[in-house]
């Protein structure tokens, strides 16, 4: 399995740590960059864009928490999906909120999945793995 470049925006350090652990459970060779809010993530992406980075070096997956300071996940999602360079990168929303409004808004803004953070790490790791595998499979599809 090809190691992935994954960006994670999560303000809660504990949750970030757990997400990173869960992603490592899936594939220890994954490169994971963690940001504390949406703004930092967007800044990172803009840097990549300025460097005119090659397409195969772009991140393979972005995980966004919804509730974050400065710029929340929904806003960051919107910016990503409006950007020509990054709009093809799958975005996974990871939140404690089960609020239907949050879920609906996420999908409306172009999110590719939505995961409610469970209280069970095994379940959480399983969910992350399932979604990652799906997107990894899609990104490895032979070009037509």
């Amino acid at each position, binding site marked *: 399995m090809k190691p992935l470049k994954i960006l994670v925006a999560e303000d*809660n350090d*504990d*949750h970030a740590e*757990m997400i990173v*652990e869960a992603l490592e459970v899936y594939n220890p060779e994954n490169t994971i960059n963690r940001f504390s809010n949406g703004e930092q993530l967007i800044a990172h992406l803009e840097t990549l864009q300025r460097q005119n980075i090659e397409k195969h070096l772009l991140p393979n997956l972005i995980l966004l928490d919804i*509730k974050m300071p400065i710029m929340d996940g929904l806003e960051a999602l919107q910016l990503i999906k409006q950007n020509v360079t990054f709009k093809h990168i799958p975005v996974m929303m990871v939140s*404690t*909120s*089960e*609020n*239907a409004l949050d879920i609906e808004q996420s999908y409306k803004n172009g999110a590719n999945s939505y995961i409610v*953070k*469970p*209280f*069970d*790490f*095994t379940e*959480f790791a399983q969910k992350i793995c399932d979604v990652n595998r799906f997107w990894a499979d899609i990104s490895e599809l032979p070009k037509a």
Partner: protein
Amino acid sequence: MNRFHLSKLGYIVGCLLILTLGLGTLWYSYLVVSKQVENETNTSLALQSKLKGATIEQTLLSSIRHTRFIYATPPVDGIVRALQHKDIDPIEGIEYALWVKRLKTIFLAYVKNTPDIVQIRFIGKANNGRELVRVHRHGDKIEVVPDDKLQQKNQRDYFQNVQSLPADQLYISEISLNREYGEIEQPPWPTYRIAQPVFDAQQQFFGLVIINFNAQLLLDKLTQHTDTFLELFLLNNQGQYLISPNKQQSFSFEYGDTSNWHDDTQAIVSSQVDNAKSHTIKFKATNTVFNISQHLVNMTVTSHVPPLTVITAINHQQMNQQIRQRYGTSVVFNVGLILLALVLLTLYRLYSHATFLRLKVQAEFEAIFQGSNDVIISLDTHGKIHSWNHAALTFFSVSEDTMENANIDQLVQHPQALTAIKQQISTIFSQHSSESLEVHLSSNHQTTRVMSIAFAPVYMGSSTVASVSAIFRDVTDASLLRQSLLDSNKKLESRNDEMQAFVYTVSHDLKSPLVTIGGFADRILDSAGDKLDEKNKHRLDRIRINVDHMAKLLGELLDLARIVKQKLKTDTCQLKTCIEKAQQSLNQSIVDSKASFEITNGDQQIQVNSQLLVQCLQNLFSNAINYAVVNTPPIIKINCFQKDDLLCIEIADNGMGIDPKHHDKIFKIFERLDVGNGSGVGLAIVKTIMEKHQGWVELKSAKGQGSTFTLCIPQLNQ
């Protein structure tokens, strides 16, 4: 209130008065009419009797003149002289025979030319009163009787009577039926004779000239030209009938009938009208009553004239009929007048009653108008004030005189308010309706008041707007109240939103550490579980269990918040389907607890939010399982029935039951009874969901007897 008002009593009295007056008038007019008719009839009777009498007198006078003419012809004297001088008249030198011949010629001519003369004779005293010349009419034939047929007449009553008369005196006989040789000639005809004595030169009675008249002509003349309603009687001096309305009675005395006027009638009343005597008499035989007028034929000639009495009579029945005829007209007129008066009175009563009611309504309106605390004015199209109430004077603090000529411009100082009011007035005149206004106006105390003004068109006739009424209501207090209410509402809404946000944030923020605690606890168990001793392992398990419990609690809290917030959308679903969905989500605990279900009327269709109903059922089933009697598998019976427009779902269990003193408590959030492992939110959610559906939940339970929850849902759309 109205001095022209005719009360009900007045109306009845008026009607009675009109009726009494009318009936009185009717009675009086009857009296007048009957008196009038009687007077007129009596006058007519008197006139007629007099006229008839005059006719008789004229006829008799004419007959007398005939007699005197015949008497005065020269042959009469000539014959006397010839007979006394050996058949030759010494004066004229004419023979008797020639005189006789001349007389015959005269008689013949006279009879021929005088229709009522039947016979003319010259009778001498000599030879026992032998007729000298006789000419008579026999039917259409007039003949001179030959000498050998002449008769001796000195035994007849007229001869006797005339013999004793002085010269120039006439004999006039009774009217009787003509007799020949003592027998009534057939057919009978009435006659009378007039004779004059003839004297010789020595003034000795020589003989007489006598004329027989046909009385039928006279009698016919009398009976003709008589008004049909008048009856005519002609009596001789013995009161015997010469003319009677009863034809058989005329001349009945000639046949030996002794009946006569004096015996046949009985006088009842007699009176004098215009010199004619008027009587009321009764015919004894028939008992009929007549009004009569008698006229005694009175001749001015110095002759013996037998008295004749003319009587005109009218039957009382006839007279009453005339009275009735004439009275009829009067009755119609009178009754018409009475009816007209009654109709007029009734109309007046109706009119005055309507006026009374109108005035009453007006007075009531006036009282409302004047007594109103609202300012009421009416204005014309130019804004001139036409009427106002007391409140208007007070509010605008003007006098009656000022108001008299005031315009709305002078009353309303705020330019904005004035423009708005004027615009509404013109709208009323053009469109006949307008909306009410709310404006700020200065009152008499120079304080600004908020006034709500309602405008209404005042119609003249059906469609013309004559003026506009404006009602100003001081809504300052209400306006303040409304404003404060709006403010409170706004605050409440923002608090509510804050609360929603709070619940959201709290649940999120509480969930975050739970995720961490649960996650790391799992990591420890995964990575170092085998290195931990039993005690620490148990402690970690307790952390996990409590994390799950708190997660569930947070989930239900969020559910409750969401249910309260959401707008209810209902659909139709089958009860069985909802029960199955609830069972599926509780699958594990149902299997573990060996719970069983008995469903009645599961096919029932329900108008409900099915998702919420499933949640209700799930909570109730879960309670039934959680609070089951130890070692007794729960049996959950579900029944569904319709009660009026309510649909009831009954969920009964065989659990430990709930003491009635707790029944109120358990539907409150976090109220949990000591036993079991519920979250304390479940029943609050059930109650909230039912209230969302305008329904409710009922509980029947007692300790140790199981519980029966009934969900009552109104079926509004069915």
